[in-house]
């Protein structure tokens, strides 16, 4: 009835994601690992939960089945560490929005640059893709 479908090998598809410098692609593996952390972040979409969280962050986090490392990452507002624990930036945006911080603040905090340096880099055209595309290929 129709042309034979070209299938993508899922293993090859996923393996390539590990070759991108400084990037964690939100794969099923990360989504599973970060399920409770991301659901915690979603809970901050309700004003009463935001108030309760800000009043006692540790107690609020202890209501969730989140690893201690992930809890520490949240308490420290260490977004790289949260992403290492399976967090996804759009879920975690509920956390930095609760802190009244912007996407630029959160993104900048993950680069090792100061906020001023990061903002300046963006004003100058952003981070060049040169050398940032592939670890193995170095291009």
């Amino acid at each position, binding site marked *: 009835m129709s042309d034979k479908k070209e299938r993508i090998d899922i293993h090859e598809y996923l393996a390539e994601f590990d070759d*991108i*410098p*400084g*990037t964690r692609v939100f794969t099923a593996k990360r989504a599973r690992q970060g399920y409770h952390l991301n659901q915690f972040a979603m809970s901050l*979409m309700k004003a009463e939960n935001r108030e309760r969280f800000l009043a006692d962050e540790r107690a609020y986090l202890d209501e969730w089945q989140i690893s201690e490392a992930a809890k520490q990452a949240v308490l420290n507002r260490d977004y*790289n560490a949260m992403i290492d624990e399976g967090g996804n*930036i759009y879920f975690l945006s509920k956390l930095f929005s*609760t802190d009244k911080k912007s996407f630029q603040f959160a993104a900048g905090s993950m680069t090792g640059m100061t906020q001023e340096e990061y903002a300046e880099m963006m004003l100058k055209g*952003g981070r060049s*893709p040169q050398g940032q595309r592939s670890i193995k290929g170095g291009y």
Partner: protein
Amino acid sequence: MARITAGITSSHIPALGAAIQTGTSGNDYWGPVFKGYEPIKEWIQQPGNMPDVVILVYNDHASAFDMNIIPTFAIGCAESFKSADEGWGPRPVPDVIGDPDLAWHIAQSLILDEFDMTIMNQMDVDHGCTVPLSMIFGEPDKWPCKVIPFPVNVVTYPPPSGNRCYSLGESIRAAVESYPEDLNVQVWGTGGMSHQLQGPRAGLINKDFDLAFIRDLIEDPERLRKMPHIEYLREAGSEGIELVMWLIMRGALGDKGVEELYRFYHIPASNTALGALILQPEGIGAAPPSVREQVDA
């Protein structure tokens, strides 16, 4: 008969909404961004250009959908949609008014056309949907047209392929053209362009990639249909993958070629390279805005 008269692309970054809300849209930083949208705002108010319905393709940013439900393609069939609370309180914008008759018609047609849609009868819409409305319609008491929100998963991998998105657009076109009511329908593809919001590589921008993407969206969509996800990730940053949603818009304009009425490209808007276009299918013949292009040198 309903017909698709134009396709618009737009950024949907939340900082644009914040700039409107805080009254900073005219400052040195945001002024050029809002100036870039002026021709679109003027154009859409011209006689004949205001759509009856916008099919607004966007991605939900963990607002309507949490980790429990991850639809690849969803369509909002409700009478209306409220602005989601993303942690700041809901954006203070009017409710989005849907067109359930047309939305259900499209949903049914797409399913028969082998796109297995998720049908949303209750859904809040986040900045992905409401920021483009604010950028193009300003701050009215109510939105000037109906909107069918059309969320696409580009958050949890794998998102749909560019080819799948383009084909979906083609099927949306066929569905709209089989709707008996005489409606002017636009398809908006939102998100992009190059940007990365996470990790040490955050802040990546690739102007060459973006401008080639705009060129081929118009001239050579076949190339873009074949572009694998890894190329978006390497070249356009981890969130640049949102550009697959532009291909839904492009597919919906048909295969006869498109006319570019307006192009805006600007760096930076917060973390993002911003692209906004007005395209129309051949044979529609709407006049372009007086300014045709604003592209950063």
